[in-house]
């Protein structure tokens, strides 16, 4: 028994080495793309099949099937709201969301994650997809946002500005450096000449917001819209314009979209007056 195990382990090491020796990027990428496309097609077909019985009622847009949307964490509430509106306008369609850090979503797409729409919190992340030739057409900017400090209700750390992020006695949270909110926060801190005493770098802005809400983090740099979305659970402290950073949100159809028509309809909704009003209600500013 023990001997067999050892053999297996040796086999594993051997295979690792073999894999390393004959590893070539082209073959690997091609096979990866193929599987993900098939999976996406399957899921779309399945949805169409189940919903075809209801297709007697003429839909205004005529969009059907599942529209998969990858979106920056800061868009969570407003996009879910728009998703409901989209499904009401297109009874044969369903919208599925995956919210997360823009950088992580971009990595997933370059690795072949099946999705139709991508919306990031920074143009730089979208540029990575443009360079990777992973988009269908050009991205469109649809909103802007700015940074704000979030503190737990009652402001136990008595924070009143970016300067306080240098205080070692406070638990200070930022987003990871490669996530837009983390990068912008560092730009703002640099503009203010503050060296922060960071205690945690969170995966995305909503993970950071949650840690502020439960009172574990005394101050976090999030977006203005996150402070609004959290309601009474956090208090916001504004960052002056000369230290603040404007985040521009682009949206695009993914090149390998299984439901390109649905993707375009969703993007139209975001850019429409209805979409812009919803974004404005959530605290976003219009894209210039």
């Amino acid at each position, binding site marked *: 028994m023990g001997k067999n195990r050892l053999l297996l382990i040796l086999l594993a090491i051997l295979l690792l080495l073999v*894999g390393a020796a004959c590893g070539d990027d082209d073959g690997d990428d091609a096979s990866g793309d193929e599987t993900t496309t098939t999976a996406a097609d399957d899921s779309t077909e399945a949805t169409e099949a189940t919903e075809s019985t209801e297709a007697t009622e003429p839909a205004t847009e005529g969009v059907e099937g599942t529209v998969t949307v990858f979106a920056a964490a800061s868009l969570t509430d407003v996009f879910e709201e728009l998703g409901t509106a989209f499904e009401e306008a297109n009874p044969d369609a369903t919208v599925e969301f995956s919210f997360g850090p823009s950088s992580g979503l971009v990595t997933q797409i370059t690795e072949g994650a099946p999705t139709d729409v991508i919306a990031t919190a920074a143009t730089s992340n979208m540029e990575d997809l443009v360079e990777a030739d992973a988009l269908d057409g050009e991205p469109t900017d649809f909103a802007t946002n700015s940074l704000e400090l979030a503190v737990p209700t009652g402001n136990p750390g008595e924070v009143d500005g970016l300067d306080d992020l240098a205080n070692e006695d406070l638990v200070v949270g930022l987003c990871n450096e490669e996530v837009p909110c983390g990068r912008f926060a560092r730009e703002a801190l640099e503009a203010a000449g503050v060296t922060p005493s960071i205690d945690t770098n969170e995966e995305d802005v909503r993970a950071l917001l949650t840690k502020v809400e439960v009172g*574990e983090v005394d101050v976090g740099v999030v977006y203005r819209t996150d402070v609004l979305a959290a309601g009474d659970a956090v208090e916001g402290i504004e960052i002056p314009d000369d230290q603040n950073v404007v985040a521009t949100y682009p949206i695009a159809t993914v090149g390998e979209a299984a439901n390109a028509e649905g993707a375009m309809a969703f993007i139209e909704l975001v850019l429409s007056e209805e979409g812009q009003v919803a974004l404005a209600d959530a605290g976003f500013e219009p894209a210039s």
Partner: protein
Amino acid sequence: MPAALVAVAFLVLPLVGLGQRAPWSDLGDVLRAPEVGDALRLSLLTSTFSTLLCLVLGVPLAWLLARSPFPGRSLVRALVTLPMVLPPVVGGAALLYTLGRRSPIGSWLEDTFDVRLAFSTPGVVLAQSFVALPFLVITVQGALEAGDRGLEEAATTLGAGRWTVLRRVTLPRIAPSVAAGAVLAWARALGEFGATITFNGSFQGRTQTMPLAVYQALNRDPGAAVVLSLLLVAVSLVVLVALRGRWTTQL
């Protein structure tokens, strides 16, 4: 038989995939990056401390569960095994609400002793120990239950006190199982992710252990993530080989 081969391929191929993506030519550069060194150092430090904590707490608990019948013992057994099957992120959330800064215990520690567990290296040790402890308890408890009590009874009959019996008879006999349990607990602590990131967040050199560094690197520098992953694979293989004679054959 074909199913068995598929199973082997299923378990081994992902490792091949990792190896295939590794930037072998940049290996040295990636391994020398400061965040890799910090993560490795922190991981080795915290998982070793976690193992010590597991030994101090786990051996007496295993003893209690194996040797002292008390009412509700099976319930206690089930409860202390729970972290083994519980999603670690749930454990992290539970720790956060029990020992976090706004919890009664956490705020008392912070007000009285100026000690903050969340977002700290000791907090990482706690999160790791929470998920690793059952592995040690179960291994040691199994050895205590399986062992022949005759030798201990003989020693008692020959006039040895309880302490002497424990020290000279019982402990030497379960020592290999304690070692195996400790290695298992160490490996589990080394791989801990969910409870650690939930309870402690992530900060280089303080709370960002190897698995957290892998996760973060995946979004920034996938090559580095692969190298870090392979490093963890190598460590895990060493652990398996070290356990070969003990744990794997016993099960």
